[in-house]
């Protein structure tokens, strides 16, 4: 602060900054200033980026008066050096005052009035002129002054907040009351689910008791209103109390609605889970909706083969065994592990059946296209590589118009691997299929 930095100080600072010896720093600075002096002295303009422009300016000779004697004197023409700091440097120096901007003054405002109005700001800024430290101190003072009128507002807000807080408490209380009720409702429904076919019937039953509480609190707050109307002399406080009751009741009604909705969702989830656990998927027609991931993957070979390839007799056996297994497991509810074992068994038998059906079977294998089943997935399933879908397409050209858009329910015949020399291990065969795929797809673009 207000230090005077001399040449040697500058040398030390530069040496410390660049980690060089003082000698080197001094050599640079000395050279820097001699060159600058030379350039400026020659009457040339010197521009140094980030520092500014030094420019000797020629001042014309002019007439003047010697103040002491009153004699007219002529000041001869001369050079004066102007220095315009670079923008970055100027802004860095002016940083403490950068927030100010030029202000247009209105015509009929005298400076005295302005001083009176701007009593706080103007003297402050003037002091700041003298010492920046004071300016820095003045700024917080101004802030504090500015905050004083704000504080009553804050108090008012706090006062407002108090009744709100009062309102939230009963609301929470309402929540507490409401929460146990759906919890009670759940156990009621779960026994009902033991007869799984009755789930659809259970839902309306569920909705009714839950909707009732919604209606019940609504009329309750309406009752006080007539009281207000009858007794107009009733205290403001009492009216407030009634309004408050009404509000809390409507809030409670909202929470009832929300909670009953949640309860309904929970019941549906529970029902779905219950079904899936017991029967390993909901059967809709010939498709099986299996939601639990393990079963979705584990059971696929079993379900796909028997359901779709009705021609082969071998897998039907597995279906029966699977059915028996399922029947066993449904009998013993807790024996989940037991249920897994038969499934694994059926899987194995299915796997044994799968190669059997592809290789020796002279009869063609028929698959049905459905959502999630594409030619590529079929190709991977039967031939071990998705690229071989082209051969399935070739085989079913009659039924398939566009291989990218096969209508669901289309029955496709899976060709014999030998017919098209399909071999997933053979790179040549895969490349051939890829080339064919490009050819086919180009037709549909």
């Amino acid at each position, binding site marked *: 602060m207000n230090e005077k930095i001399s040449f040697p100080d500058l040398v030390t600072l530069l040496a410390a900054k660049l980690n060089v010896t003082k000698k080197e720093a001094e050599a640079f600075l000395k050279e820097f200033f001699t060159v600058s002096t030379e350039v400026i002295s020659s009457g040339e303009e010197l521009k140094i980026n980030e520092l500014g422009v030094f420019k000797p300016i020629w001042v014309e000779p002019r007439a003047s008066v010697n103040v002491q004697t009153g004699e007219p004197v002529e000041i001869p023409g001369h050079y004066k050096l102007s220095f315009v700091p670079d923008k970055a440097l100027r802004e860095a120096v002016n940083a403490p005052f950068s927030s100010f901007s030029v202000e247009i003054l209105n015509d009929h405002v005298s400076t005295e009035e302005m001083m009176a109005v701007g009593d706080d700001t103007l003297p402050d800024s003037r002091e*700041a002129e003298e010492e920046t430290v004071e300016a820095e101190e003045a700024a917080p003072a101004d802030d504090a002054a500015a905050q004083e009128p704000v504080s009553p507002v804050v108090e008012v807000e706090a006062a407002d907040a108090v009744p709100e807080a009062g309102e939230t408490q009963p609301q929470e209380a309402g929540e507490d009351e409401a929460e146990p009720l759906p919890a009670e409702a759940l156990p009621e429904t779960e026994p009902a689910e033991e007869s799984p076919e009755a789930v659809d019937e259970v839902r309306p039953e569920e909705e009714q008791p839950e909707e009732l509480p919604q209606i019940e609190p609504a009329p309750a707050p309406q009752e006080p209103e007539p009281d207000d109307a009858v007794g107009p002399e009733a205290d403001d406080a009492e009216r407030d109390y009634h309004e408050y009751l009404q509000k809390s009741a409507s809030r409670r009604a909202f929470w009832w609605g929300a909670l009953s909705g949640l309860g309904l969702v929970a019941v549906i989830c529970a029902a779905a889970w219950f079904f899936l656990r017991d029967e390993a998927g909901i059967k809709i027609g010939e498709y099986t909706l299996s939601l639990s991931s393990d079963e979705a993957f584990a059971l696929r070979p079993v379900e796909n083969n028997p359901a779709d390839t009705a021609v082969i007799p071998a897998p039907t056996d597995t279906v029966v065994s699977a059915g028996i297994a399922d029947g066993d497991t449904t009998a013993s509810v807790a024996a989940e592990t037991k249920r897994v074992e038969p499934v694994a068994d059926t899987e194995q038998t299915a796997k044994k059946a799968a190669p059997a059906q592809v290789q020796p079977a002279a009869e063609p294998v028929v698959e049905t296209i459905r959502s999630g089943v594409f030619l590529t997935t079929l190709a991977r399933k039967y031939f071990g590589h998705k690229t071989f879908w082209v051969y399935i397409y070739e085989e079913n050209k009659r039924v398939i118009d566009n291989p990218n858009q096969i209508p669901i329910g289309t029955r496709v015949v899976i060709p014999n691997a030998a017919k098209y020399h399909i071999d997933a291990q053979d790179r040549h065969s895969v490349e051939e299929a890829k080339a064919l795929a490009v050819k086919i797809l180009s037709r549909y673009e």
Partner: protein
Amino acid sequence: MDHKTFLTQLQTRLGKDKEEVESYMSAFLQIMKERCSQMDSVAIQGFGSFEPKKKLERVVVNPATGKRMLVPPKMILSFKPGSAIKMKLKMLSSK
């Protein structure tokens, strides 16, 4: 003389390569900036002194519109040429 030619002149005088001179230059300018924004003045014997100065706020009148404007107080970096430069400029003037 612009910045580039000034740098090349420095290079030839110091016998250093461009990068080195530039690094010195930027370090020096950074020191100047830091110091001047801290209200420190930098005085170099023979060359002159850089000094940040406070300017009062003032009212100016736009001659075109006749509107009065209050120009805020500000700090500016002033440079006062040293004796050596003054002498040389005087010599230049008298020529």
